[in-house]
């Protein structure tokens, strides 16, 4: 099965710009379905970006983040060819991770 994570990391000078699109329903737990029943909360809680053994970015998500979330950030360091690891964990304990090369 294809990964839920798409990532594009581009090294630019002394910093690396990272964009990531993650496929996840991000159900808040407050929305009702067509039968009028609450759709149980199912959302990512933590997203971690690691480079060179260090965590360069941590996102703490919850019910307020929309479906298929997108995140964009810059971190100091990183060069072309380096590996960047992206991993997430949701409130049901499910997880996924992906290792991408910085372009």
């Amino acid at each position, binding site marked *: 099965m*294809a990964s839920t994570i*798409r990532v*594009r990391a581009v090294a630019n000078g002394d910093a690396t710009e990272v*964009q*990531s*699109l993650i*496929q996840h329903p991000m159900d808040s737990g407050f929305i009702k379905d067509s039968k009028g029943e609450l759709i149980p909360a199912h959302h990512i809680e933590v997203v971690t970006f690691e480079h060179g053994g260090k965590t360069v970015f941590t996102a703490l998500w919850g019910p307020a983040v*929309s*479906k*298929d979330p*997108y995140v*964009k950030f810059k971190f100091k360091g990183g060069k072309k060819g380096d590996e960047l690891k992206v991993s997430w964990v949701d409130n049901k304990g499910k997880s996924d991770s992906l290792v991408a090369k910085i372009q």
Partner: protein
Amino acid sequence: MRKLLLAALLIAGTAQAVSAAETVDPQKDLKSFREYFTSRFPKVQLDDFVNGPYSMDEGLRAQWKAIDEFPPYEFAIEKGKEMFATPFKNGKSYGDCFADKGIGVRQNYPYFDTDKGEVITLELALNRCRQANGEQPYSYTKDEMSALTAYMAFTSRGKRFDIKIPNDPRALAAYKKGEEYFYTRRGQLNFNCATCHVQNPGNHIRTEVLAPALGIVAAMPIYRSNWGGMGTFSRRITSCNTQVRASSLPPQDELYRDVEYYLTYMGNGLPVSGPGARP
């Protein structure tokens, strides 16, 4: 006196309808339609109209450009590609139902089927393909259909819309019905499509920037942030209806297909920009 006035109006009304049917000139209509928008928005490049609200609002365009680097419809394209390549239980596949194996054909839909005497949209063609091969049809407003059309639109990106209206009275009638639908006020709020997309492109309705009618279907299917997912033209028009308090028709109702035919024709020459992303 009032009775006479009403009678005169009725006669004038019917006389207009008769003469209109005798002189349907889609090419002339297209020219006027296009000129209305290009003269109203002289700074917008013709091809840019397919970007809907983004051609009307700089701030919105900047947000779109940022999202477009990693578009939300990517998942739909991938899913659609996989679905398109998967053969049916009988061994045939979608490619067998379309010209050029269904790759790069979005710009030719909808078309008028002179055998069946009706407008065929891409979605209708896909479901008929499924049914002809022993498969269940997909819902017109859910994700499977829009994943398929997202992939097909993606393979056709940049190709210029080339909707044909054959010199057949039934095709001209469908075109005319589509035009009538577009300009007929409906729903308790009494809006027609033109109220928003001809009279008010670039203006706001609540928090949304309105798109111009020129090229408005070029980006279909669209990922709407509002929906948190993909949707076809059917999904959009049924929700437009409900928003003006008009009860919606079945997704591929003849009237909806006719208006899609009319609108897509009006965007002839503009590029396929689908699948699209909208607020």
